[in-house]
């Protein structure tokens, strides 16, 4: 039985369309909007008696400008430092006592706060989140201490990590004008200059129900969730719906290079990034799906082109990855990150990557390659449903970037509809030299790959 299925699969694999089960296609969610503008989205998942609650504010580093970069992230830290009703740290303690886990994250387009709890404790999360949506107490002493904590976070994540420090600079080169050029954690000089009044303004401006989305996924009934939301978030004053800053756009700005060496570096690193549309900025959504499939052709797993050709056939890359995430408010990047094998120069690796991109522009991918990429993307889409947290993330990210969760409803058809000609077309349109930034990080001062560990 098993053996026969195996032979069958081996013979006709190239002809079979992978069937994605209906549960992944339908994506049932319920939603409502409170009078004060808060958007509430509920997705039922009754596998375990737990729930995840996330509050998404449409504000992040792409809303910032100098000298206030990093302010969204600092405010995220301050959201745990007490309100008119809660002492500093009490928020976390209440969630912990209720058997929950909580934290927050800040990105380019959003700041999000979450709690994971037993489903019958959802009310606790709502009570706490509604409170800090409008009652935050921004204390100057707590702020000074927390800014020190953020500076330590910056040292840990970026300053002392040569690849991350390089990535921060490369990011600014790859986005010559867009607000995405700013690091989420902020430039160090700006962090030092932040004042409590800046945070108060930022909080007043962006933390309103009309600028937020509440996403709940778990073992809950939507009707009950809506009632609870009205009870706790309903009394939060509405405020105006703030408009996100308009991007100063510059399309195809010309090829740029960043070359850096660092004494701490032991292994060279290559970054390449093409400026491409996101699901929010694309004129034609077909381009977005085609770019997703193109990413799958290059890096959908070990069978994909980059692993096959650069790692195994040519042995020029010790590691290589390509990625495209369409959930962004502004034009975004199609990125390739690679590490050369010992004895391969970053330039040789760059040339090999460019050749793979050129091949995509030159000729359409074959049917088997296309279908494998599509199958893998759709299977991963289904596997994503295994995590309640990730389901909530998908919804929240699409809402906060202005794309809307409904985008998921068309996802399967969109991916399935991509043809080899589409992949070639987007390669020709977007993976062009005048949209490309190349960054090379090298070991400085004799720390090259001849430097062996002595034993």
């Amino acid at each position, binding site marked *: 039985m098993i053996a026969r*299925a*195996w032979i*069958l*699969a081996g013979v006709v*694999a*190239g002809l079979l369309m992978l069937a994605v*089960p209906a*549960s992944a296609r339908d994506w049932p969610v319920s939603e409502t909007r409170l009078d004060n503008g808060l958007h509430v989205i509920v997705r039922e998942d*009754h*596998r*375990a008696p*737990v729930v995840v609650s996330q509050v998404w504010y449409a504000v992040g580093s792409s809303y910032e400008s100098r000298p206030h970069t990093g302010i969204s992230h600092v405010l995220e830290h301050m959201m745990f430092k007490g309100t008119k009703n809660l002492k*500093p*740290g009490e928020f*976390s*303690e209440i969630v*912990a*006592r209720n*058997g*929950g886990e909580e*934290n927050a994250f800040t990105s380019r387009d959003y700041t999000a706060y979450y709690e994971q*709890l*037993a489903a*019958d*404790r959802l009310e606790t999360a709502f009570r706490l989140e509604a409170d800090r949506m409008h009652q935050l107490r921004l204390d100057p002493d707590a702020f000074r*201490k*927390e800014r*020190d904590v953020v500076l*330590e976070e910056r*040292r*840990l994540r970026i*300053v*002392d*990590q040569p690849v991350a420090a390089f990535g921060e600079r490369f990011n600014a080169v790859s986005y010559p004008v867009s607000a995405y050029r700013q690091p989420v954690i902020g430039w160090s000089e700006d962090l030092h200059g932040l004042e409590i009044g800046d945070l108060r303004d930022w909080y007043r401006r962006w933390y309103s129900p009309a600028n937020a989305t509440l996403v709940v996924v778990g073992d809950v009934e939507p009707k009950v969730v809506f009632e609870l939301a009205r009870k706790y978030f309903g009394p939060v004053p509405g405020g105006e719906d703030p408009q996100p800053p308009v991007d100063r756009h510059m399309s195809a700005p010309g090829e740029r290079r960043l070359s850096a060496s660092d*004494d*701490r570096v*032991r*292994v060279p690193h290559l970054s390449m990034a093409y400026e491409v549309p996101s699901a929010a900025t694309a004129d034609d959504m077909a381009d977005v799906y085609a770019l997703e499939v193109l990413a799958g052709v290059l890096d959908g*797993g*070990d*069978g994909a082109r980059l*692993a096959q050709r650069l790692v*195994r056939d040519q042995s020029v890359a010790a*590691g290589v990855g390509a990625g495209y995430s369409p959930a962004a408010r502004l034009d975004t990047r199609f990125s390739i990150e690679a590490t050369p*094998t010992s004895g391969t120069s970053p330039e040789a690796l760059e040339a090999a990557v460019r050749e793979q991109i050129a091949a995509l522009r030159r000729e359409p991918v074959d049917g*088997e390659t296309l279908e*494998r990429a599509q*199958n893998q993307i759709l*299977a991963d889409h*289904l*596997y994503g*449903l*295994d*995590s*309640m947290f990730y389901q909530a993330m998908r919804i929240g990210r699409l809402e906060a970037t202005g794309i809307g969760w409904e985008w998921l409803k068309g996802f399967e058809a969109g991916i399935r509809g991509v043809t080899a000609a589409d992949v070639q077309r987007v390669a020709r349109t977007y993976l062009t030299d005048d949209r490309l930034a190349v960054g090379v990080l090298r070991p400085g001062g*004799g720390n090259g790959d001849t430097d*062996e*560990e*002595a*034993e």
Partner: protein
Amino acid sequence: MMRRIMLALCLIVVASAPAWAAPDIQRWRTDDGTQVVFAATHELPIVDVRVLFDAGSARDGDHPGLARLTANLLLEGADGLNAGAIARRLEQQGARVSTGSARDSAWVSLRSLAREANLDAATELLARVLAGPDFPANAFERVRGQMQVALRHGRQDPGTVARRAFMKALLGDHPYASPPNGTEAGVKGITRKQVEAFHRRYYVAGNATVAIVGDIDTRRAHEIAARLTDGLAAGEAAPALPPVPPLKASRTVRIPFDTSQTHVLIGETTPVARGDERWPALYLANHVLGGGGLVSVLAERMREQRGLSYSSSSSVTAAAAGGWFQVGTQVRNDRLDDALKVLRDSIDEFRSKGPDADRLALARSNITGSFPLNLDSNRDLVGYLGMIGLYGLPTDYLTRFPQRIDELGRERVAEVVSQVLSPGRRVTVLVGPAGVIGADEAADADGEHGGGA
């Protein structure tokens, strides 16, 4: 029915925990002695499988990196198929396969659609990979090279440098001292023959555990487990490891590194292995000290009160042959002395007095209440099932663990902490600028550190 009984138990025994039923776990052995642990979950049409072998770096012998290299090579060629063919066939089915290894085990993970044709094809291919890896010579050279590049890359990360130095100082010449990703010299010296011999000895049915979670019934789970292991030699389980020894003396390892923060690790070995009845108490105690996120003692003292550090935490690990306890932070260089005093005082106080009663109650309700959160996905569950099989834990472990936590009183927790931790024998690792950390101890001979010139 099952669920209602469990629920009643929970309400009686775990009054503070939410009502919760652990998944129904089934367990059996194949004819060749492989342990199988299975839980059916029907909400999503997917299946997760993990095949584990007692073939982690504790079995490296004199060749650090041998276990990892063997695991890494499994998908690089088998039964006449090359790496690209294996990967493409799996991807065509929408399957995801990966390999990994740690100190106690090496594993292959499969995630597949539950649909019969897809799952059968993926299972069949995985069985061929497990039973007949070819370890092709060119793949061997390439993957060994990749591991060396990764190790060199690790030397530019102060956190990695600190963790490696810590485990080395802690574990001395115990088999656990061999790092899961090897050493540069060790990996360089490995031969293909050694990999083949390692596979022959340890990738055998008698040394394997199969964990399965997903949208299939028990009959199918039996078929899959049998198919995955029927190409393996029967073989024997790996012999027990010697117990992790207590530290003989305190020691400070200072590694100069051009960083703006100093990385600090302080800790010691413990006799608490997987299955030790003191584990829940130690786990609970650690949650109070530094395992409970922002509400733990260390986070409060280091971050909330003093703004010294972004991350300060502690952890306890229980492995097959013993365990270890560690406290870690990263602190700006001009505040290192303050940070070391806070950390050392906190550990000493914790060891001598045990956790504070209020904090203990908070930790207890957090652990018992949040336990179901650890099991809300198939991926989490297959990890736990693999652990239960690998370490021979009781089948009701997932139900019992939160109950045990809930039963623990302050005195018992304090007693275990004072038994398990020494009065002050500890390893301290400092990675930071020479002028900050001092330099009274020569750099370790294997030179797995460095950084700035």
